[in-house]
């Protein structure tokens, strides 16, 4: 076991089984379906003193409670509202996480690999960079070896094993474990646990976005294919479409 704090990030995203329907009105997308809580890949229980934080709007407290019920010791809610919330992206979140990691004197930050709403796969890496800490991303196996961490990473070519110093950032892949259930007795106990609230300003973080959303559209409808009989036909068709 390792002594020291572990910070686990939790994000509230849309349920993967729900169909998202997009309606665009005045350049801003209006999502018709609301978000359902999904706690992504929390690894707990090997390490002591686990605390949690969720930057986001005020409806995330329930998500934090579920995470507390799954075994975290403390919850931290970084409240972001209004315009700042709309432009919240991986860069802003990493800044918050980095500031918190320093404030809490954490030894390990565990985050999800890639959220299903924005599909960015950036927060873990950015957080590590801001802290100048080593990173073990796409982890499917995490073992402590003294004061180092051995991480087996799921990469395109197969599995890569690396050993990194602590403090470090690890992002969790699906294969890391089977999440335990948040049982009702634990939910009841979690209702009594305190969730600390703070604002990004308290952490000295600037949330201005460097991105401007120009438009949001559904992907174009897939057109029916065209069958051709010979290679000559194919070449002619491609020329016709201006592709060659």
């Amino acid at each position, binding site marked *: 076991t390792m002594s020291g704090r572990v910070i686990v990030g939790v994000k509230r995203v849309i349920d993967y*089984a729900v169909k998202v*329907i997009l309606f665009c009105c005045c350049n801003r997308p209006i999502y*018709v379906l609301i978000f*359902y809580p999904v706690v992504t890949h929390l690894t707990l229980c090997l390490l002591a003193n686990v605390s949690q934080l969720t930057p986001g709007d005020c409806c995330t407290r329930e998500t934090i409670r579920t995470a507390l019920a799954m075994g975290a010791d403390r919850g931290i809610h970084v409240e972001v509202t209004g315009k700042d919330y709309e432009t919240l992206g991986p860069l802003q979140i990493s800044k918050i996480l980095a500031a918190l990691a320093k404030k809490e004197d954490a030894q390990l930050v565990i985050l999800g690999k890639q959220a299903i709403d924005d599909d960015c796969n950036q927060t873990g890496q950015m957080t590590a960079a801001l802290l100048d800490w080593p990173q073990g991303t796409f982890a499917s196996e995490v073992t402590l070896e003294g004061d180092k961490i051995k991480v087996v990473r799921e990469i395109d070519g197969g599995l890569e094993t690396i050993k990194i110093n602590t403090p470090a950032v690890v992002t969790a892949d699906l294969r890391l474990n089977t999440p335990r*259930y948040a*049982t*009702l007795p634990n*939910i009841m106990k979690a209702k009594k646990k305190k969730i600390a609230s703070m604002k990004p300003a308290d952490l000295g973080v600037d949330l201005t976005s460097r991105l401007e959303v120009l438009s949001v559209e559904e992907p174009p409808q897939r057109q029916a294919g065209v069958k051709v009989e010979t290679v000559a036909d194919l070449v002619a068709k491609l020329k016709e479409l201006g592709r060659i």
Partner: protein
Amino acid sequence: MFPASRYSCQARRCIRALKIVQAEHITPQLYTALHRRTCSSVSTSRITTHYTIHPRDKDPRWEGVEMDRFVDEADVVIVGGGPAGLSAAIRLKQLANKHEKELRVCLVEKASQIGAHTLSGACLEPTAVFELFPDWKERGAPLNTSVTEDVFSILTETRRIPVPMLPGLPMRNHGNYIVKLGNVVRWLGEQAEELGVELYPGYAAAEVLFHDDGSVKGIATNDVGIAKDGSPKDVFERGMELHAKITLFGEGCHGHLAKQLYKHFNLRENCEPQTYAIGLKELWMIDEKKWRPGRVEHSVGWPLNRNTYGGSFLYHLNEGEPLVALGFVVGLDYTNPYLNPFREFQRWKHHPFVARTLEGGHRIGYGARALNEGGFQSIPKLTFPGGLLIGCSPGFMNVPKIKGTHTAMKSGMLAAEAVFPKVTAESVDSETAGLHVPEYAEALKNSWVWKELYAVRNIRPSFHNYFGLGEYLGADYNQLKPAKDCTPIEYPKPDGKISFDLLSSVALSGTNHEGDQPPHLTLKNDDVPVSRNLAIYDGPEQRFCPAGVYEYVPLETGDGMRLQINAQNCVHCKTCDIKDPSQNINWVVPEGGGGPAYNGL
């Protein structure tokens, strides 16, 4: 499989030999044709693996598994976070605060979020909301659309006969609100939490617990972490027990625990069997030019024939966007096993009067749920030692009005008012450990709920009688005629613009369940579907399920069919439990959090 070219000569010879051996094994069986078909169940693997059918104390895979449950006590436990359950919880806390008494009220709900399993038209009669919260407007209750137009039609295949909505008719909607009931339920949940009710969405009540004297002790929530084959997984955890002085059961139409309670306490000995309908609903974003906010449309007639009860609704919401809620209701006492309520709904939408509203629009939601049709005569005994029934579970639906929310809420409130003095009394004078509160049934009999239901008690039963006199046919599951005596119905193919196929509709309901768990549609006998349902009725469950859960598929080997249960599709409508002619299907609650994800439906 593996390309043969990759193998050596010797390996190829081996594979060839193996193939011959394989073919020899599947030699034609020595059965007769009849034997082969009805024997198909012999070669099927078990369909039902749930512990309610195969008890775990006799199962060797469960030896040594820790089965103790964590126990907690509350004053009142409420099963079900719908309008009735939440109203009861809210009223209890309102009384507790008013009289400055401590009261622990716990509510368990199988949906992952309050409101996610709620589905209704809905044209809400606001009497109960106004009673519960006189300051409903300041509190932001989502009652945004007053009814402005009320239209009733009798449809034929191509035309529409208008029926004037004269004052005094039960169907008139003046003073009512078109609501997204899911949003109202969510709002009720927020009010309840503010008042101090402990809400636990995502936890289903799976078992009723009893004291030694036979009274209800409370409930136990579902176990988690059981694999599809019924064995324990690494993450197996027992549910917890919630004990209470009294338990309020508000599971909605045809609740699975209520089903057990009816048998256990013989609550239905002096009432008619409950009868039901299935309601299917869609939410559409339509062309703004066609949008008439506040407009309520109902119809009867086409596409149903004279002997099948049912009709449609179409409500124009007024919440900023051009949304309409529309749906179709089919009485589950229908006789033709070839009837497919989902496809009736889809083809109704093509009627010119309906299609003109939907053209150019976009479908954004789908769902289905069974509803009560029995009315006054089907109300069971409501109270028993340790518990009582509220809402659509016993069934207070005003059938001609097709409204049950206001009566469900009122029943919850009356239950709370009857229960409160007893649970907060210093000393309790009770014969049984669980409290018996017959005062609730008395209060209900003296309330407007009773008067309202009594006044309309003969309308639905008279549908089937030639002279329009009230007549009861008995339970819905007994009404199907054998398939050989009925004509299959030719349904039109969905056009993908106004009508749709079943599976894309199910996807829109957002339903999902943890895949690796025993199917919660349990069969008392795995052989009955093929030997009875399919043989006599041509498998009506593949037609009445609005989510495609039941499929008869050919066996992989030999002749015959087997039933495939796609439990993950289930939208918790309860129609199968109601309409199965063999009453072989027992719907039980899956792992909490599973089921549809309705958003304001």
